[in-house]
């Protein structure tokens, strides 16, 4: 024992005599026990040592569909099917837009996309922040219902409105367009001032897509971007 405190004074290290087989080694009075590992620990060790032998061949031997990215792609496809199974692949024409404008459960899909990607600039209710107010009757780059899809796909205003092709899939673009169209006339509180022109109301389901008569103004710069 070299321990000298709390009552300091010389003491003799018992380990000094530990030179034969019968004496355990002691450091500063600390003995070393002979405890053994619990069985569950040993079993766990065995399991962890053996499992890579199964894991690596299964996941990393190049078998199709097992790598993280492949499984991601499968999951993403499943997710798309889950989201859009009932409607299939949509085409961005007026009848389609008019149809989904009247289907609240699909508008809610559009709202989800809107909330993830659009509220930063257009506000949580579409009242407009940096981007224009979407809840009034004035539009900057839209004259017809399907122009919304064009603006979404190609962007507008020198990239103020980014192009979403490649970032959102076709269905998402169409459904978020419908959601945006549905915001018209809700005149959200605290909305941004009017920008652009008043345009004719959206066509209804019974209407044919008749050309509107309001042609004196062209959309500002919806075609600048490509």
């Amino acid at each position, binding site marked *: 024992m070299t321990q000298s405190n*709390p009552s300091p004074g*010389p003491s003799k290290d018992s*380990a000094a005599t530990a030179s034969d087989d019968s004496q355990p080694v002691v450091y500063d009075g600390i003995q*070393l026990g002979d405890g053994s590992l619990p069985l569950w620990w040993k079993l766990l060790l065995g399991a962890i040592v053996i499992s890579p032998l199964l894991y690596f061949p299964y996941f990393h031997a190049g078998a199709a569909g097992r790598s*993280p990215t492949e499984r991601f792609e499968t999951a993403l496809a499943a997710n798309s099917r889950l989201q859009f199974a009932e409607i299939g692949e949509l085409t961005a024409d007026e009848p389609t837009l008019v149809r989904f404008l009247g289907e609240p459960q699909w508008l809610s899909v559009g709202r989800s996309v809107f909330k993830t990607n659009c509220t930063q600039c257009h506000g949580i209710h579409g009242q407009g922040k940096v981007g224009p107010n979407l809840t009034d009757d004035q539009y900057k780059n839209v004259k017809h219902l399907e122009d919304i899809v064009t603006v979404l796909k190609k962007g507008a205003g020198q990239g103020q409105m980014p192009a979403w092709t490649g970032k959102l899939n076709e269905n998402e673009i169409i459904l978020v367009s419908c959601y945006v169209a549905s915001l018209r006339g809700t005149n959200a509180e605290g909305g941004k001032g009017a920008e652009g022109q008043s345009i004719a109301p959206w066509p209804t389901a019974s209407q044919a897509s008749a050309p509107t008569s309001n042609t004196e103004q062209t959309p500002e710069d919806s075609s600048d971007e490509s």
Partner: protein
Amino acid sequence: MPTTAPLPLPDAPAPAAVERVRYDEDLPRFFLTTMVLWGVIAAVVWLAAIAMLAVPTWQETASQLSFASLRPLAVRLLVFGFLSNGLFAASYFALQRLTSNGLQQALGGMHLWGWQAFVVLSLVTSHWLSQMFFLAIWLLYAANVGSMISGRRRRGLFITSWFVVASLVATPLLYVLSMLSGVNGLAGVIHAADQPSWLSGTDDALLYWATGRSLLSFLIVAPVLGVLYYVIPKATGKPIHSYRMAVIHFWSLVGLAVWAGPQNQHLTPLPAGLDSLGMFCGLLMALGGLAGAINLWRSLGMARDMRDDTAVAFMRWSVVAYAVYVVDSGWLSLRQMSASVQYTDWTVANSQLMLLAFAGLGVLGAGTWIWPRLVQTNRVESPALFWSVRLLVIGVAIEVLTLYVAGYRQATMLMGLDETGRLTHPEFVDVVVANTPLLWLRLAGWSIVLLGLLTYAVALLRMHAGRPHTYQPAIAEAVREDRGEPLAATAPHPSPLRSAPVLETAIKLDQWKQMRWHHDLERFPVRMMFRVAILLLIGIGMALLPTPWQGSGEASVATHPYTPLELAGRQIFVREGCVQCHTQTVRPLVAESIRYGDFSRPADSVHDRPSLWGERRVGPDLAREGGKRSHLWHWQHLENPRHELASPGSLMPAYDTLLDQPLDYEAIVALTRRFAAQPDAVDTDATIEAAKAQAEAITADLIAEGGPVYRGERLVLESRGLALLAYLQGLGTSGVDAPATATEPPGSSTPSLPEQVTQSRRSMGGSEARSNPPAMLPVLFIGVPQ
């Protein structure tokens, strides 16, 4: 100086003379004092850092005072100031007694004051000279311990010495390498804002996780374990439960810490096989750690009569925290678990559990036991000490548990998909707002920790008041053991088979199982040191292997060399510590791809020196940020993130001061040169022209979007904020010049940056940029100095 006077013993026929050894107690006393002082300061700075998030408007003067600037200071104060000083105290105290050799007082004094100077320095700068200073001071520590061990009177080394030796060897090795990786292992601080790191992208990220992160295992975890292996049996007076388990514990930590690094990089652009390897190494390391935790717990558990002993109470909690920490670390290394909780507060909880609960309480427990011996008093227990352990345990528990709850909530909210396959919380800021109240719990926890540390200081002062008029020298007697004698015969436990009628092989097997081979190894510290170093170097070599996958593989949608202006913006991003809260790697998970966009590819970060993948998402991932929002939105968001037009509820500091600063084109040229492999090839005029052209294009967009023309007295065109805007809007895009060819040509694993900068500059010099400035631009810019 160690004074060793031979003591004549009347009845000493022994061949080995009994010597009197004097142990130095001043140095541990000073180190323990500094530990408490730095601990109090650390708690105050942690409170301030968390308060910056809880009340984000306090960060309005961004670059001076923000979570991003305070957190690194808080971590350094906690690690370098509080924990390291405590560990130096305890290791000097323990190693003198374990080697029966005194320490070198002159070296020790330099170590003491040098280290305090380093702690102060580390708060002020992360310049490479301060890193060198760290290494110099560490060398003093190593020299002192080395002299104790080389002049030891004992034949072998005790468990504590193994851990301290491993820490001495591994820390400088990993520190130097993590410096090369460009990201400081502590708090993820990037210290190379102005210089390109040695490696880029995936290579750099791998090196960082293998070295920078495992640095803490050796700077903190290993020495704390060493100290616990000494103080627990000393405080309880009982033996160490199992020598064998200690051996397993030690080598699993040393051998696997570096290998387990990639476990934190599941689903990043790192090759999948590598993170699986990290996963299994992480599991094995956790299992080894669990063996250690059981060992320490059983060593403690025998001391049922020590219920009222405060030192034992501290260490009991420390060991519990260690057990939870290793189980959680093993759990976190699983790919599925990592997919859910990586980048949330869960991982922060894991590291706070280690730093505060395991290391913090462990060091405080060691201090509680050592201090009365250093001040030579019997007046140990006091009401202050009674309350300090309770306050500290409660405070630390609140901090850690709150972070786990926050991590769980963030994980479920951010990854949550509803039954129709859509995000349950589409807006990131909703998740932030939902978890903001938890920050107040963290503040409460840290307040209690601060109170506990102050109470602890009072308790130590009370013990100090009971010191004798003059300290008696701590003198022990020791016999210099013969080191030449093989130790196999003197194993901790003689084989019971020796006298039994069994085969010699059985005896040998039994001896092997008794770890006698290890007992032999303990006699050769240098050999042991080399084994530690070799194990680490093998792991690091794996991390340094050339990575042919980088820059090749599937083409990424988003990679382009940085333009001079973007480079300047990136420097701001690094300097302001944005990486503390924003990651730049989207993982191949459905929820992340819906929220952020396409997952990150190796080629995406090929131009990143250092890599900015990050560790934590206080704010959203930025890997696909470019082009998602308008310039004007970003401008307003930088000016005031909580503005109703920006992102109400955000915790981000306002960077309005940044917008006020002028853009320094000369500095951009200098920066471009530093990041270019051939600085001479960078032409000053062309670089300035390119940067100006991009700044003009962005300003034009900004104004066209309805943004301001002037920022105070200065034109927006001259604002430094434009550089950051350029950088953010370029993230995850194919660049300003937009050709698909901007993606890295396959096979060029070491891209020459200058070529690409020159290339992009050339293309920018023309009439390219993303958007053509509208006709009104020349009018606006009349009078702007070119």
